[in-house]
């Protein structure tokens, strides 16, 4: 008698989960299938069966002189990796500064950072472009990753994580062991923060990888363009050159690095890194 309701619940739960998984993965399936079909096949409508145009599509994408895919991948990788590293490291550092030290302007500093969090990128975009033009960084990759140093959302995540997982006794113990302040951060705090760093690194990487708005404003040189700009360029190609197979192929190429980054970093997202250090 007891078992029956839980059995039904399990079945319902699985059906819901399978449906959700299907919703998530179906688009990837369409993407991969369409990357193997040519333009006319795609225009005819959807098909579950993969076509035979994978290699031709790939060749078209790689050989298009107007769309420098390889340099696009390289640029995107540089920008996204640096963004992820800068955003996580410096946000953790800021959060640590506000968490572990007591100073007069601690509260105002925290509120200031939170205020920046509510400001949309678009609002400050004009000022930002003005600034980097004056600094001579227009049409370079620097403006795409340097601002990641100040990432209020990542900061807030790190701050909350520290409150729950970083006992200050560990910091004190390190100080007594003869550790300087920076070394304490790098050798004690960073390893304990690994799960939080991994989560935020993935988010920051993906966000930067998909970012179209700022790169489109900053970059004009073809060899410095990132993947989202190239995809957009391909999509807005004129009628005669428009090839859906190519577009799907480029998008497929664009998501591979994200999957790799996710798989590589997700092994650090484990609970209990800080377990056992202090008696709770």
């Amino acid at each position, binding site marked *: 008698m007891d078992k029956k309701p839980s059995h039904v619940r399990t079945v319902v739960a699985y059906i819901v989960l399978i449906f959700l998984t299907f919703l998530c993965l179906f688009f990837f399936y369409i993407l991969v299938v369409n990357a193997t079909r040519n333009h006319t096949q795609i225009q005819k409508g959807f098909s579950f069966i993969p076509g035979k145009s994978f290699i031709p599509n790939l060749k078209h994408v790689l050989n298009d002189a107007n769309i420098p895919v390889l340099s696009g991948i390289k640029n995107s990788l540089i920008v996204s990796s640096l963004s992820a590293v800068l955003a996580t490291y410096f946000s953790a550092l800021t959060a640590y500064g506000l968490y572990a030290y007591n100073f007069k302007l601690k509260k105002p500093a925290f509120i200031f950072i939170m205020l920046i969090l509510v400001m949309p990128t678009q609002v400050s975009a004009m000022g930002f472009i003005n600034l980097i033009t004056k600094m001579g960084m227009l049409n370079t990759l620097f403006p795409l990753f340097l601002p990641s140093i100040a990432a209020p959302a990542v900061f807030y995540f790190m701050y909350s994580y520290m409150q729950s997982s970083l006992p200050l006794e560990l910091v004190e113990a390190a100080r007594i*062991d003869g550790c300087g302040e920076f070394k304490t951060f790098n050798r004690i705090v960073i390893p304990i923060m690994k799960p939080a760093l991994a989560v935020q690194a993935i988010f920051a990487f993906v966000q930067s990888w998909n970012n179209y708005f700022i790169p489109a404003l900053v970059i004009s040189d073809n060899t410095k363009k990132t993947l989202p700009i190239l995809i957009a360029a391909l999509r807005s190609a004129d009628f005669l050159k428009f090839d859906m197979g190519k577009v799907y192929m480029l998008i497929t190429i664009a998501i591979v690095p994200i999957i790799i980054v996710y798989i590589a970093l997700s092994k650090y997202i484990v609970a209990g890194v800080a377990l056992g250090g*202090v008696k709770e």
Partner: protein
Amino acid sequence: MAGITFKNVVKTYDNGVTVVPDLNMEIKDKEFVVLVGPSGCGKSTTLRMIAGLESITSGDLFIGDQRMNAVPPKDRNIAMVFQSYALYPHMTVYKNMAFALELAKTPKEEIDKKVHAAAEILGLEPYLDRKPKALSGGQRQRVALGRAMVRNPEVFLLDEPLSNLDAKLRTEMRSQISKLHKQLGTTFVYVTHDQTEAMTMGDRICVMKDGIIQQFDTPQNLYDYPCNLFVAGFIGSPQMNFIDATVEKTGNGFALCFGEAKLNVNNEALAPYVGKTVVCGVRPEDFHAEPQFFGEGNAIDAYIDLDEMMGSESYLYLDYAGQKLVTRVPARYAKKADENIKLAVDVDKIHVFDKNTELVICQ
């Protein structure tokens, strides 16, 4: 190796609360000093000031001859064991113990030697490759001790290191720490609220209350000659009995009267108190049921509220002349609850305190 000196040290927190109003204390080189007192008495703050984890508002702190007020913790050559252990969770036991030595750029072979030596003393050899989360509470505690040991610090600070352990382990670790002190020959400062730990381990004990040192003396002297009511009540378990008694002048001296008892105390210090009420302190073991102790006026006939049989002796909780008393008598003389018992007070061992100032009058 070095002693520690506090000169007029004041600690006031940012919110204006003064925890330590004016601390003067001298801890000698190689001494084992225990800071003891109820929670919030400033003992941990005092320890953290020695460590450099709390700033000093005013006054001077010396370790050896060097003034330490502005020296950061890492340059003080101290080691500290935290109540919560504070082990680095991402490092193995070996790395935890070697960390400070690595930072000091000690050669690898020497680190290895020192860590293994400490691990052997503490019985941690089999666990060197484990991470803290795979250890039991007692093992973690020993790693924390080991981490402090390997450094040969000038001063060894321990902040309630045993309070998270079970009773059996605590007794075991207590003797281990005492042994360690003898072996290392370093100055130890140990904070606890447990008076048994204080009594058994300390060369000298500093009893604190509200940031003020009440008495700083050897365990035996604290027990035999407490300087005020607080110390008398804090040291000793079960606690000393405090009985309100009136001082009367007798033919050849003074008597402390309560109930039917008239304890003859011939001490001139009582002269100003004739006719007044004082507090008479009697340790539970200074009530005797054995016949040879009975003398003139020192007997009480009390009702037993509760008896606790401890094996060789028995704790009796008495109700006498409206006052609650605890006594500790040999089991064969003890009686059961709801009976009456006749006990003699050992007059030579009583302590008399002023009721207003709470200071000792004579003992």
